[in-house]
């Protein structure tokens, strides 16, 4: 693994500069230190705003999903580090069209503290906010402590679905309800084959042996549930699907959108090899596949590895999932 960068301490600011330069039709930089990415133009009056935030190094997550039918603004931290309270508060302010703002992000301690505090601050400015946390990583805590689970690629579904709901003009309570429903409908797990390099550290912060893989590892290298020899694709896929289905079985007739996601370096070729098993297993259990997603939707820079997310859909969620949306990384 090697990186192409200038001063590691400017990594995030430079990538944001490039991002808005390349896609001014989707993104603008604003907020304290330029660390808020928002849609161009003012917040739409009367539309519920949706903000997210978190560490950098996961593109398209988080920043990339700002766009029509998706998010309104994102507070951008350093690589794998929380944005500051003030950056989050600015993201909320810019997303506010007077109808309140939903904070929709992953269940990480630092992010929560900062977003809560940012909420306290903007409350004094009469902006009402709600929170929905993504907790889709089944490997990160047992079912009994499901609320402690980390948020990973499942947040893509929550962004999409909540974003579509907000676009219809639904009020804050309704958008929050739907976002929570989406968050409850997703289950994910991942496998990592190599670490990635945090620019400021300059070297991998953890390691995986040359012939091993780590099932359930978090996107920042949080330890997984099993370290083992690297196995054939079909078996890796099988084990990951088992983990998801153990947490939530498929019932005949279930409509499921599966996401086969590269954590970075794993090429689409290998995602498609894995997708075969995903499709077989869902269909074998009597499920029906809706809008499968295969690609890089939530990454850890150049990490080798993949994650699977299953999103169980009802009519409402499916409608919002399929509604038009557009950002520089995804168009529906």
């Amino acid at each position: 693994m090697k990186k192409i960068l200038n001063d590691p301490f400017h990594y995030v600011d430079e990538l944001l500069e490039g991002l808005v330069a390349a896609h001014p039709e989707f993104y603008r930089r604003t907020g304290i230190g330029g660390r808020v990415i928002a849609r161009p133009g003012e917040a739409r009056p009367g539309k519920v705003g949706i903000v997210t935030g978190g560490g950098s190094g996961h593109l398209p997550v988080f920043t990339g999903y700002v766009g029509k039918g998706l998010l309104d603004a994102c507070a951008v931290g350093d690589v794998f580090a929380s944005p500051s309270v003030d950056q989050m508060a600015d993201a909320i302010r810019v997303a506010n069209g007077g109808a309140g703002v939903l904070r929709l992000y992953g269940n990480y301690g630092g992010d929560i503290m900062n977003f809560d505090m940012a909420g306290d601050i903007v409350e004094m400015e009469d902006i009402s906010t709600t929170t929905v946390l993504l907790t889709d990583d089944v490997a990160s805590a047992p079912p009994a402590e499901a609320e402690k689970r980390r948020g990973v690629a499942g947040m893509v579904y929550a962004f999409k679905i909540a974003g579509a709901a907000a676009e219809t003009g639904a009020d804050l309570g309704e958008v929050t309800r739907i976002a929570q429903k989406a968050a409850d409908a997703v289950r994910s797990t991942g496998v990592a084959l190599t670490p990635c390099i945090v620019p400021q550290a300059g070297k991998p912060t953890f390691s995986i042996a040359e012939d091993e893989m780590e099932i359930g590892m978090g996107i920042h290298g949080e330890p997984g549930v099993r370290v083992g020899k690297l196995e054939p694709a079909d078996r890796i896929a099988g084990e990951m699907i088992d983990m998801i289905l153990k947490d939530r079985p498929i019932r005949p007739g279930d409509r499921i959108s599966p996401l086969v996601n590269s954590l970075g370096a794993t090429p689409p070729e290998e995602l498609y090899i894995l997708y075969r098993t995903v499709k077989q297993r869902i269909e074998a259990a009597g499920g029906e596949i809706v809008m499968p997603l295969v690609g890089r939707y939530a990454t850890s820079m150049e990490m080798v590895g993949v994650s699977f997310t299953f999103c169980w859909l009802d009519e409402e969620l499916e409608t919002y999932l399929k509604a038009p949306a557009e950002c520089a990384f995804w168009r529906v």
Partner: protein
Amino acid sequence: MPLTRDGLIAGLSAVADHMETVADVLNTLDGQLGDGDLGVTMVRGGREVKTVLADLPPEIGESLMKVAQAFTRVSGSSYGTLVATGLMSAAKATRGRTEVPWSEVSGLLNGAFETMKARGKAELGNKTVLDTLDAAAKATNGLDDPRAILAAARKAVAETMDRMRQTPAQIGRARIFADKSIGLDDPGMVAFAEMLKGLG
């Protein structure tokens, strides 16, 4: 003499300066269990705080709020937010006053503890800064002399660190390395101890 704006400025300035000298130690310690940024957090926070000291108003509550805001401006890491949360709690408790008797320090520490506990959703015993903060609040209860307060707080913090060294971390990033954390001091506790040390 009670706590005034000038005393606050002197204290914060001393703590900020002291942070520059312990940054590497804190980074290294945090690096063993987390992302190695705790020294950076404290130094950045301290420097930003120093930029606002000259303009602090006589009112203690407002001053503390400005200090808290300075801290949040530059820090995205947990500890920075927790420190700011504690400062804001103290700011609320001292709103409208230009003098705060030393006998209130214990209560301010306890107030900070409570709000920080709520913010971080942690419990006593999780091996975080909260354990030392709670110990300091309790040890200073009933004291009204600044030197006595500082000495009692230090002693309580050191004892808590000794007591908890062999327990595993249960929250934050360090929770991931719970096993590795046994035998190591919690970085946030060490940072708190160093803040007290910086006070003289």
